[in-house]
């Protein structure tokens, strides 16, 4: 048991310690979604409509930032020693994803401090489901980042995927316009986009509009997507290599 928990716990802790020592990272992750949000929100006179999208973007940036480091880390970093340690790969994957998800979550919570600007008042009791929703979204996006980063040989490749897949995925998730008024094709894409359900989940827990299809479906889809990515990460990491990334 300890040979599974201990490696995962040490990886999780490592993420937090590194984060604490590079606190300026927070600024990089939170600042640009905040600026986007304020510009679009004040520009269109509707801060509330874009709030959840901006929060998800914060979480996404943090998840990308954490998982992109996998590429360098396994070539010349701590991940190398993990690869030749007897610790199970699944424990390694879990530790890395939980650690990075925790950081994304913390940054999402920091963004939550701006909720009053969107007219959202969160009581202590409401904080629990909101925090849980943000964690679930953080976990899912970190899993997505892991799956993309694991096979990558260069960070440039990750940047390309970020621009061609992740950012468009965010744009058609209901972060900028609701599914209800979207054009047919786009609406279909939004319906199939797992991120759409992250946005509706947040809108629902924050009491903002555009929360369909309701908390139950939103939570279920987000959680299922997250678990699927965790499984994929585990399978990818456990695979034997016939060529080295280094």
């Amino acid at each position, binding site marked *: 048991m300890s040979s599974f928990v*201990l490696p995962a716990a040490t990886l999780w802790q*490592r993420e937090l310690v*590194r984060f604490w020592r590079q606190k300026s990272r927070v600024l990089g992750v939170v600042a640009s979604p905040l600026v986007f949000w304020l510009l679009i929100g004040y520009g269109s006179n509707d801060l509330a409509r874009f709030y959840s999208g901006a929060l998800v973007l914060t979480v996404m940036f943090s998840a990308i930032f954490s998982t992109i480091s996998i590429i360098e880390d396994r*070539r010349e970093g701590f991940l190398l*020693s993990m690869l*030749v*340690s007897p610790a199970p790969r699944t424990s390694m994957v879990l530790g890395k994803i939980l650690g990075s998800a925790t950081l994304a979550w913390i940054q999402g919570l920091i963004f939550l401090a701006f909720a009053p600007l969107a007219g959202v008042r969160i009581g202590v009791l409401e904080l629990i489901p909101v925090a849980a929703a943000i964690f679930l979204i953080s976990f899912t996006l970190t899993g997505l980042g892991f799956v993309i980063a694991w096979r990558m040989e260069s960070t440039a490749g990750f940047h390309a995927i970020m621009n061609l897949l992740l950012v468009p995925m965010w744009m058609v998730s209901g972060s900028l316009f609701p599914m209800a008024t979207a054009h047919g094709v786009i609406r279909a894409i939004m319906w199939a986009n797992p991120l759409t359900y992250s946005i509706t989940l947040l809108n629902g827990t924050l009491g903002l509009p555009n929360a369909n299809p309701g908390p139950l479906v939103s939570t279920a889809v987000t959680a299922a997507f997250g678990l699927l990515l965790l499984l994929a990460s585990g399978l990818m990491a456990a695979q034997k*290599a016939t*060529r080295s990334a280094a």
Partner: protein
Amino acid sequence: MIEVQNLTHRYGDRVALSNVSFEVKQGEIFGLLGPNGGGKSTLFRILSTMMVPTEGRAIIAGHDVVRDPAAVRGRVGVVFQTQSLDKALTVEENLRAQGHLHGLSGDDLRERMDRAMERLGLADRRNDLVETLSGGLRRRVEIAKALLHRPQVLLMDEASTGLDPSARRDLTRHVESLRENEGVTILLTSHLLEEADRCDRLVLLHQGRIVAHGTPRDLRARIGGDVVVLETADAKALAAGIEQRFGLHASAMDGHVRVEIQNGHRFIAEVVEAFPGTVDSVGLHKPTLEDVFVHETGASIE
């Protein structure tokens, strides 16, 4: 302690290792010497369980690296050519994390960490961030980290790369004392002759094949006598002239001619007289591993 049997590895069409076999005995310091691209790194990746070979097998401490990598990983310490430390953590934090990866914790881990830091002279640096350490010190942290779980075998890939001569000597001293005091078997890859010379036994790798195999002394003894090196403007012409005139094998390599011969000092006088004005400078030395490599492959290690 290490058995390598008919290992072959291909990256697509490119053959990186071709039917490599050798054995390393317990407590030996064993070297893989060869130029970059000779197959050392591929072999290292296979032995450290990072990669599965195309054919053949390797057994370390009784366990197959492909079939039972977890058992091998628990018995082998790996020192990479590149860094495998977390620069944002301290020396102690890196070691503790490594211990956790091996399922070690509590007092046992603390004792092992103290001992490893003591052994490698890192005790007064334990709370320093790795990013503030010199290259030589980082290398020592890497070794301390690799020893934490008391491996029977230590694999080191180009461990002295990027170190200055004093840090390199220091590293050699630590490696030798490990073998003396702990009986650790050490397999290292290198493209440095002086490092290879300190191994008990070694193999020379060239284009994925073993071209020579033995103790440094035996390997050098393959070349009888001396090696004479002549610098000249036209190496090919001089080599041809020597072969014709003396009936000796002479090899021409960028700007100089090498001849392996008994009583080289006499030959020097003869050759300089025989080709007046063509020889710019003359050198005579006892055979080195570089000479053995040139002898076997016609190519230079560097």
